[in-house]
């Protein structure tokens, strides 16, 4: 038998000290930010019946953390808040006036399919806007995603916007059959664009179309790129999808947010339920999207509630990673009482705490010990209480 008492299980970790504080702070800031846009906070159970999360048609879902309860029912830790919120909406909002706006900051759990050393527990923050299918809600959701990153102090990022049925429609325009579509989709999922291209050659698409499709997978660009794509595919019905993207761009232009937008038809998400505009936000220094979102108009139908919806999820752990270097270290004081006048030091310390200072009362009797401890633990100064007086000993070089 192995004893794992001192280990944490794969994919989960501890947060201590400044890192824990930073995480807490990011969560609070994001939550407050979203609340101020009028989004209602939801908290859902950490685990629920597996049926809530198993939204695809297969039963095998190797990325879910599943459990069996005493009654023998299958449960799963939530892998995504959208499913839980869909259940909430479908059961509680049937007769309510729409749209409903929800926000959340919660931990979600999933097995990364292969990697070692990548998290299984993620903190996600996000919003869901339910019951409005218009371009206005697309704009609102993308705008909030952009503004919340700006408010957190993330400076350079780009919002990659695509359209989830665009490729599907193009495949239909090209009269590909179900089997062919699946094979192509599989190569896209695997991000294997060499086999992708080879396969397109094999099914004898013309060279221009192969180049266009490969380009769609590997390129991205600003408004001019979108115009080029439109021109190239003008005769196909898929180009109609592009109008929504133009509209989105022009709305964001009015808000002076268009500089963040990059059009990109290769973006692909963990969640497969998207039906319209789909977007991911990337920033330097993080090898994965910091925000993923999009429209999922047919998803709620699976829960018996037919309403359009759009939302995004934000990777809070990623944000913590990005903001780590910008933590402002709080000043910390250590205090020691060298006589019996505990009340004096207590009142004095509390006065300082009210001003927002951090004061740690040390448990040593001996001044030298306190200084040694304070220096090693990086306290700024030591407050020494004696004879109804306070003396401040500097522990760090910089001034208070």
């Amino acid at each position, binding site marked *: 038998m192995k004893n794992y008492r001192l280990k944490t299980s794969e994919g989960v970790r501890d947060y201590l000290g400044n890192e824990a504080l930073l995480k807490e702070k990011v969560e609070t800031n994001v939550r407050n930010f979203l609340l101020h846009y009028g989004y209602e906070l939801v908290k859902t159970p950490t685990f629920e019946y597996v049926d809530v999360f198993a939204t695809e048609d297969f039963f095998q879902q190797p990325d879910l953390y599943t459990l069996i309860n005493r009654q023998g029912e299958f449960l799963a830790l939530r892998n995504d808040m959208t499913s839980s919120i869909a259940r909430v909406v479908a059961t509680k909002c049937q007769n309510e006036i729409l749209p409903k706006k929800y926000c959340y900051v919660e931990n979600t759990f999933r097995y*990364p*399919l*292969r*990697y070692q050393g990548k998290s299984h527990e993620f903190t996600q923050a996000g919003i869901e806007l339910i019951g409005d299918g218009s371009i206005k809600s697309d704009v609102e959701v993308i705008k909030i995603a952009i503004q919340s990153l700006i408010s957190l102090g993330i400076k350079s990022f*780009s919002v*990659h916007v695509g359209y989830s049925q665009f490729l599907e429609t193009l495949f239909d325009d090209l009269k590909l059959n179900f089997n062919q579509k699946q094979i192509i989709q599989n190569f896209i*999922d*695997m*991000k*294997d*664009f*060499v*086999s992708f291209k*080879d396969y397109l*050659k094999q099914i004898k698409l013309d*060279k221009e179309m192969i180049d266009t499709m490969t380009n769609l*997978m*590997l*390129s*991205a*660009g600003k408004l001019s790129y979108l115009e080029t794509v439109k021109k190239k595919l003008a005769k196909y019905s898929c180009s109609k999808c592009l109008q929504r993207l133009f509209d989105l761009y022009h709305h964001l232009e009015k808000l002076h947010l268009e500089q963040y937008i*990059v059009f*990109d038809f*290769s973006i692909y998400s963990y969640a497969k339920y998207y039906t319209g505009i789909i977007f*991911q936000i*990337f*920033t*330097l220094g*993080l*090898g*994965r*999207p910091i925000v993923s979102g999009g429209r999922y108009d047919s998803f709620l139908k699976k829960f018996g509630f037919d309403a359009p919806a759009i939302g995004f999820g934000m990777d809070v752990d990623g944000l913590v990673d990005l903001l780590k270097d910008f933590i402002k270290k709080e000043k910390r004081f250590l205090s020691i009482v060298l006589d019996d006048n505990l009340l004096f030091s207590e009142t004095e310390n509390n006065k300082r705490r009210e001003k927002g200072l951090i004061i740690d009362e040390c448990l040593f009797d001996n001044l030298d010990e306190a200084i040694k401890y304070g220096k090693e633990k990086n306290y700024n100064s030591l407050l020494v209480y004696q004879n109804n007086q306070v003396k401040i000993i500097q522990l760090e070089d910089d001034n208070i």
Partner: protein
Amino acid sequence: MITFALSKGRLANKIFQLLQNMNINVSDFKETSRKLIFISDDQKYRFFLAKPSDVPTYVDYGIADVGVVGKDTILTISEEKHNFSEVLDLSFGKCKMCVCGFHDAKNILNSGNIIRVATKYPNIAKKYFEKTNRNVEIIKLNGSVELGPLVGLSDVIVDIVESGKTLKENGLEILEEVDNISARLIINNASLKIKYQEINELINGFNQLLGDNDD
């Protein structure tokens, strides 16, 4: 700046030649040198040399934006999702991943019985036989895999075949082809998004050199 992770050895030499044709010079690099990190003369590209099987890992984690690695290495790890895209077939280092064995072993492959497979690439073998709906027992070997059928350890092997000479000399033959292997350009997905302009330039450069290999 774009960072490349390259497989040490033949592939790296080849890629520096290609880059030279694209006017990207790395005078730092010499075949005999033991240095691991190089910077191009125009300071736009950084290269480091890694063990081939580690190249996808560096690219996966975004430590390198771009990697050059054999398809076989990608296959060994890519049984599930990874965080990079396979973008170009650089069409050198060509060979084939095959199922090989004695001529008679064909019957075993189609018998529906459990097939014993010796290989250096257990993931590739597992995936291939899963895809073709056959039950296998996989035996991992570390070299001279051809011995498997010769000494009766396994019915067949899954291995890379270049010239087929070793097979022939031992009375074995190719029974089924699993995949075409060659050097591939892989790119971290986030780099592909964030540095799309530089990377597009790079891809186009390679494409022109390779003549889009449309044969």
